[in-house]
């Protein structure tokens, strides 16, 4: 079966996202080999693992950029906000025009659109940059603008793709604080895909360790750091010895 569906908001309480036995291959190479998990409302799930293990592939399925070979993705809302690793702001548009893009379908008046955009920019501390072009912003400001664009429609599900990769430790902490603040303010279910230890340990309520296209460990960040599981121990303590050999993702 190859299905992705979104039920309405009036559905009985349950997981915001349910992924069942997700499988995907590229050019005959199996990248996901039966991934299953649930994300609950107001929960931030961390999907962690070494580079190339299939983390971002899971995220791309959740936001509709990829179609599974088999398995099921059940989402309780179609309103999904995705924060890209590199911000993915359109350089030919101003910050205001970038944030207006997700609002195009809502047929709002200009004033209403402006009010929402300013509100979201204030949330990330960038209201004074509303008419700037992305190239006029610093890397951290671009990342925060990407956050604002992802939440402009008040999504029920927020996905973060490597939100702190390539940032200095101070900027990483600022971004992580924004993620925690947004989770509290919006009450959305979130998934953060990352391999940065500070990011998953500070922001996630629960983590899944993915290796070889499968979930090999699941628990909360505190358990992860103390775990005796060979996969989790190797990943958490960044050691060479363990079942995760380089190149065998």
């Amino acid at each position, binding site marked *: 079966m190859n299905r992705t569906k979104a039920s309405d908001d009036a559905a009985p309480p349950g997981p915001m996202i349910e992924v069942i036995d997700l499988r995907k291959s590229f050019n005959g190479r199996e990248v996901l080999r039966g991934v299953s998990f649930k994300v609950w409302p107001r929960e931030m799930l961390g999907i962690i693992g070494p580079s190339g293990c299939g983390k971002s592939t899971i995220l791309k399925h959740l936001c509709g950029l990829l179609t599974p070979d088999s398995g099921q993705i059940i989402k309780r809302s179609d309103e*999904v906000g995705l924060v890209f690793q*590199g911000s*993915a702001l359109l350089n030919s548009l101003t910050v205001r025009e970038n944030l207006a893009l997700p609002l195009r379908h809502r047929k709002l008046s200009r004033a209403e659109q402006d009010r929402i955009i300013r509100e979201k920019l204030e949330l990330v501390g960038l209201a004074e940059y509303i008419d700037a072009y992305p190239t006029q912003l610093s890397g951290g400001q671009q990342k925060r603008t990407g956050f604002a664009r992802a939440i402009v429609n008040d999504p029920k599900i927020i996905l973060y793709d490597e939100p702190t990769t390539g940032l200095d430790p101070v900027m990483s902490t600022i971004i992580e604080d924004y993620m925690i603040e947004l989770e509290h303010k919006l009450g959305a279910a979130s998934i953060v895909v990352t391999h940065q230890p500070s990011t998953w340990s500070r922001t996630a309520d629960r983590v899944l360790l993915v290796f070889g296209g499968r979930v090999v460990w699941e628990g909360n960040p505190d358990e992860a750091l103390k775990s005796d599981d060979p996969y989790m121990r190797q990943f958490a303590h960044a050691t060479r010895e363990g079942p995760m050999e380089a190149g065998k993702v």
Partner: protein
Amino acid sequence: MTNLPAARKRIDPLLLLENWFGSGVRLIGQTLILLVLTVKYILRGEIDWKEVWRQCYIIGVNSFVVVGLTAVFTGFAMSLQIARELVLFGADTAIGGVVSLALVREIGPITAGVMVAGRVGSAIAAELTTMMITEQIDALTVMRIDPVQFLVVPRYLAAMFMMPALSVYAMFIGLLAGIQIAHTAANLPPETFMDSVKQTILDRDFTVHFSKSWINATLVIMLSCAIGLHTRGGAEDVGIATTRSIVWTMTMIFVFNYIVTSLTYAPR
């Protein structure tokens, strides 16, 4: 441990041919699908006119200088050659007719098409490839905005408006260059030159002129966009996509130019 140099890849001519042919067929298919989707959006009226006018400026207005420069020197060279031969045969009064025929039927659309392919087509391929690599196209898809409607439709409409304007402009500039050369090299008065033009050019020539312009606009925009929207990879691939776009659009402009000419002017 000794670092050995990587073994040289063996070049298999058959494999190279297969890859080249396969990628060509794939690009033609992608271009045709893109054209169908673009026309579908235009027929539905789902057009961002503000972006269309912006693209008209980028594609058309910004191309006037290069098209003008190319047209004036092409006009000079061509008129000089024609004037030299016709004067030898005592047919100098026919210079205007021959020059204008070449300009209306071939040189005008070709000059505008080639210059727009080089200046605009390559820029579109590079821009869209960069947008693919930096996940901007993915961002549009996640925001439920079709990249074809958002990026391709305005560029296509703008090119359909501006390419005929540039072709006519190239033709007039070439004609002015012809008048100048005929006057200085063959001592032909501009009035005699223009009389010959009026007697030679038919309405059908303008129909062909505009048809070629629209075909060129379609080729430049659709091929460049198809290449840009289907390229993955890194910085190197932006360069490859740009080169590929120029090679394909220019080659196709000359191929289709010949097809239209042979369908309309071949002796029956």
